[in-house]
């Protein structure tokens, strides 16, 4: 009998340990507003359309995914069948310039028009940004101008310089941030654009990119990083490995064939 009770106690102890891990309820999902996770940047109206521009966070110098929601005010329906174009413009008084853009076109599964803009300067005394949203509903082009404010992040998310190879292009390298940096393998994506004219910033697709992460404070790096390779539209995808949290610096080297385009540039990433 006593022997049994001891055995039972042992079993109980084991069982208790196993149970601690279990027991999570799945909540019933209410219908989700797809913009819930985003920040409203600016809104305006044109004709019967109310246009709202969302982003993950306030606009910054660098690669900003933007989400445009268009509501028809006559019936309060979300319009999902338009074609939407974006046109950022900075007015610097004596001159104007645009920025690299990836146009939204048609709506995504959430009914949002998702495009990306690389803001290449902060708003301020030098000038201000206007984001023009163009709607095509099959009944003519409608435009709404939205004033938006762009700030510089404390850790730069875009690098600009003159290429050092024969082409001598004005290049913009932007970091496409994942939702969260973490210890482990992180996707490391950059976009590269060049300035063709003040209004035209096409993607640069023929570069070789090498990366080298470092913790400057400690002087160490990390193993098994994957150099980004070109995917499409000037996007280069690779992997960066972080062995701990803290302040990391990811050095980049850009080459075109055997020619050095730029080295000695880096993104600082603190998490």
């Amino acid at each position, binding site marked *: 009998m*006593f*022997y049994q009770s*001891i*055995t039972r*106690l*042992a079993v109980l*102890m*084991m069982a208790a*340990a196993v149970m601690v891990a279990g027991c999570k309820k799945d909540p019933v999902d209410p219908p989700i507003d797809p913009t819930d996770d985003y920040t409203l940047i600016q809104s305006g109206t044109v004709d019967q359309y109310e246009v709202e521009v969302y982003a993950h966070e306030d606009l910054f110098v660098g690669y900003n995914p933007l989400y445009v929601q268009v509501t028809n005010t006559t019936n309060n329906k979300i319009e999902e069948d338009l074609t939407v174009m974006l046109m950022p413009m900075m007015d610097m008084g004596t001159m104007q310039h645009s920025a690299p853009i990836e146009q939204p076109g048609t709506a995504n599964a959430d009914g949002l028009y998702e495009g990306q803009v690389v803001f290449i300067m902060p708003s301020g005394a030098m000038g201000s940004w206007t984001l023009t949203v163009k709607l095509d509903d099959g009944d003519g082009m409608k435009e709404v101008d939205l004033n938006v404010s762009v700030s510089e992040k404390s850790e730069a998310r875009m690098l600009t310089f003159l290429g050092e190879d024969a082409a001598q292009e004005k290049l913009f390298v932007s970091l496409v941030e994942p939702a969260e940096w*973490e*210890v*482990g*393998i992180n996707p490391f994506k950059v976009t590269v654009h060049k300035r063709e004219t003040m209004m035209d910033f096409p993607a640069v697709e023929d570069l070789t990119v090498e990366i080298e992460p470092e*913790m400057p*404070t*400690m*002087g*160490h*790096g*990390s*193993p*098994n990083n994957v150099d980004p390779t070109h995917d499409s539209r000037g996007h280069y995808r690779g992997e960066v*490995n*972080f*062995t*701990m*949290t*803290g*302040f990391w610096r990811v050095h980049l080297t850009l080459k075109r064939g055997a020619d050095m385009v730029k080295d000695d540039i880096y993104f600082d990433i*603190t*998490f």
Partner: protein
Amino acid sequence: MLLLSAIVLNGYGQQHRVYDISDTNKPILLEEIIILHQPDIFEDSTLEFYQSSQLSNLDMMLHHMPDIKQISRGAFAREPIIHGMSAGQIKVTIDGMHIYGACTDRMDPVTAYVEPSNLKDIELGTGSAGMAFGPTIGGSLNLHTADPHFSSKPVTKAMLSADYHSISNGRDLAMQLLTSGKHLASEITATYRDHNPYRAGGGEVVDYSQYNKLNLSWIGKWRINSQHLLKADVIYDDAWDIGYPGLPMDVGFAKARIFGLDHTHFVRHRKLSRIHSKVFYNVIDHAMDDSEREVPIHMDMPGFSQTMGAFSEAFWDFGHGHELMAKVDVHRHNAWADMTMYPENEAPMYMLTWPNTRRWIAGSYVRYMYHHHKHGIQVDARVDYANAKLTTQEGLNHWAVFGEDLSSADQRLTYNLRGTWGYEWTHHLRSHITFGYSERLPTLSEQFGYYLYNAQDGFDYIGNPHLLNEKALQATWNMIYSGHHATASVKVFGYRIQDYIFGHIDPSLSTMTIGANGVKRQENVPLAYITGISGSYHFHLGHHWSLIGNAEYLHGWLDNGDPVPQIPPFMGVSALRYQGKRWFVQGESDWALAQHRVNHAFGEHPSHGHSIWNLRAVYEWDMFHKVWEVEMAVENIMDQNYHLFLDWGQIPRQGRNIKVGMEVHL
């Protein structure tokens, strides 16, 4: 009948039988237990000799045991090493309970949680003899906690003792409270220690060598009836502000909470004599920091270890010299450790150094013994299944950096097999030959450790999830003389270790620790060899004099010709005692030759030899119907500045120490 009641009272009949072999007063038992020389139990002679009071510490007692050496990183919690094997190569248990340290730097060996005041005896098994406690190649060290006896009339006894050490302005206090009756017995012990940084020989203070600790324990026994006995063990051990001069970090606190519940069923039915079962649970909480050190960036390194499990063992006596023991054993070990660095004006840097690991180990063990006339044989066999996993995505992500997908469990088996033949040449002289094959699991650090800095070689260590089990073939021959006035034994042994786990420099990795020499990965070295000879003796010279001591020589080499690391030089201890009626005086020496065979890759440095002399006197008298005892000792009389080969950082040991102690039995 007398033997039976002894078993009932102690609940550990088997081990007592083992102990009986070295008891020269019972030569009649010699034949019966001829082959049970291992595990060797050091109860009376050695321990009693050095445990002159309840305040001598366990480290000091282990230092005097044959076959055991110690790795020292400071004045506190030295790590035991058996025949050049330590950490995961040996198994250290308290009353058979599995306990794992929570320190990635091995600052907290299990031996830190038992004090002389709650220690009953130390059971040592070298090499494959350790397998009764788990898969091990180097051996086992099992610390038996105090075992309060039942008594026919209610008895309450108490002991108080205190001492002072001049070398560290150190104070130790200990207390025991024993109450026992016919069916219940309980022992409560408390030990408190408070030591400042000590002075080395020559007078220089060794910074960061202080420690403070409080150890409380309760052991309760309940004899339910003649067949059932329950025993409970609770150990509460708190240490704080502990310096480790051999390491770049100290310890803010180290806490252990250890719980065990034993049940013994004296079946005595047919051939089954008894069943002993135990459930246990323990948590170890460890916090390292370098807040007192001058470092470029301060860091914290907490660690946590939790183990729970149960085992059950049954003993059969078939008569005619046949005996069998079988054991099943299962436990689960969870651990994590992390590191946070705090650079100035920058985000803290954080990583997991033990990335949330969980390991189940289930094993079974059988031991068969047979003796006939002058011959005896013993066969031991053990098999274990281990299942290890990283339990969090965060932990898995850490290892993904090294291209490792550790999402599925690491499963492995270990096998241990051992055979011993013993022969009794005369009534006083016997010898044994043992052959063993043993395997052990890689440790958590060896398998999953993440940038663990090793202060000895200055390298960061990365674990290797694909390590193979370490395996050893072992042969031992020993000869034991045990006469009326002397016991002496000599043992010759050799190990051929396959897949020896050793760190190799990986030049492709960059260091994590500022100033580290590089990064090493744990790898399996094809072969390593360790051989040695050890001897111990205890002579009674006339009525008053006795001489006790031991010495050991080890020699080891890897297959590339380098010496095996952590092989101490030829060294030993001895003590000569003059015993008066109620007093004794004892001279002790502690010596080692130089060691020039060092493993440079492991960061070892040659050591000089040393010889240290101590003088100790104890006097006992009655006063107020109580027994009083006073101890005076001078340790390291010549105030030598020395260190041992296995001392990290070549930190000098204590210089001349005057110790004064007092003990009263109430």
